[in-house]
């Protein structure tokens, strides 16, 4: 099954994105903690794109696509048209570094990498896609 949700690039839309992802995952028998963890990962990627790639420009948009596959698990595609940001090439800081330098950011992508099983980035002329895969049992 495939679910899609497109939103303007406003920070206030993050809550709507979380509601959409939760609503979809709740339909497929995942535990409450699994749902909340996956919602968090999608929130982190979307927040990163909305704030850093789109500078919160409401005229631009991102799209969240969720594919639920009984064999492969969950595939989330986050689609946009901004400059590509390759999460796999991003060297996240260590927690020690963040604490020492009193940084407030930098841990979102650590969370995403810990939560998801696979992250792929690809693009064509029209769009960029951040694909997040979670191998999990689906009802």
């Amino acid at each position, binding site marked *: 099954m495939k679910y899609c949700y497109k939103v303007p690039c406003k*920070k*206030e839309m*993050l*809550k709507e994105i*979380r509601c959409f992802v939760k609503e979809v995952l709740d339909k497929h028998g995942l535990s*409450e*903690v699994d749902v*909340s*963890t996956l919602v*968090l990962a999608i*929130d*982190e990627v979307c*927040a990163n794109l*909305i*704030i850093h790639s789109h500078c919160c420009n409401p005229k631009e948009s991102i799209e969240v696509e969720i594919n639920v596959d009984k064999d492969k698990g969950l595939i989330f595609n986050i689609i946009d048209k901004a400059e590509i940001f390759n999460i796999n090439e991003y060297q996240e800081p260590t*927690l020690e570094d*963040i*604490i*020492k330098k*009193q*940084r*407030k*950011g*930098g*841990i*979102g992508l*650590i*969370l995403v990498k*810990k*939560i998801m099983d696979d992250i792929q980035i690809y693009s064509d002329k029209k769009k960029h896609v951040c694909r997040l895969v979670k191998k999990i049992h689906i009802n």
Partner: protein
Amino acid sequence: MVDIKRIQEEGYDVIVIVGEVDASSSIELDNAISDAVKSGKKKLLVDCTSLEYISSAGLGVFMSYIEEFKRNDINLVIFGLNDKVANVFEILGLDQLLKIEGTKEEAKALLG
């Protein structure tokens, strides 16, 4: 989306977080902790019994104060995390870096 109150009780301040702390609302948590630190209070409790969600933006706020708390001898104890929120702290190992207790009584005991 988030409502944050600071309540002065005898000997300590309590920061009460109600709702969701994400990239759009973490500034409010930051302001509340910053105000409490500036007021010179050395003992702070953070009541998370009504905290429904926290993303890295909120976690980052807590992390950014760890050094300052150490330097200024400020004791901050978080309590009342629900299972989903506690799980987020655990994924990053923040439960080892921050003082987290189950109940307000336990948190008060840790404040000393």
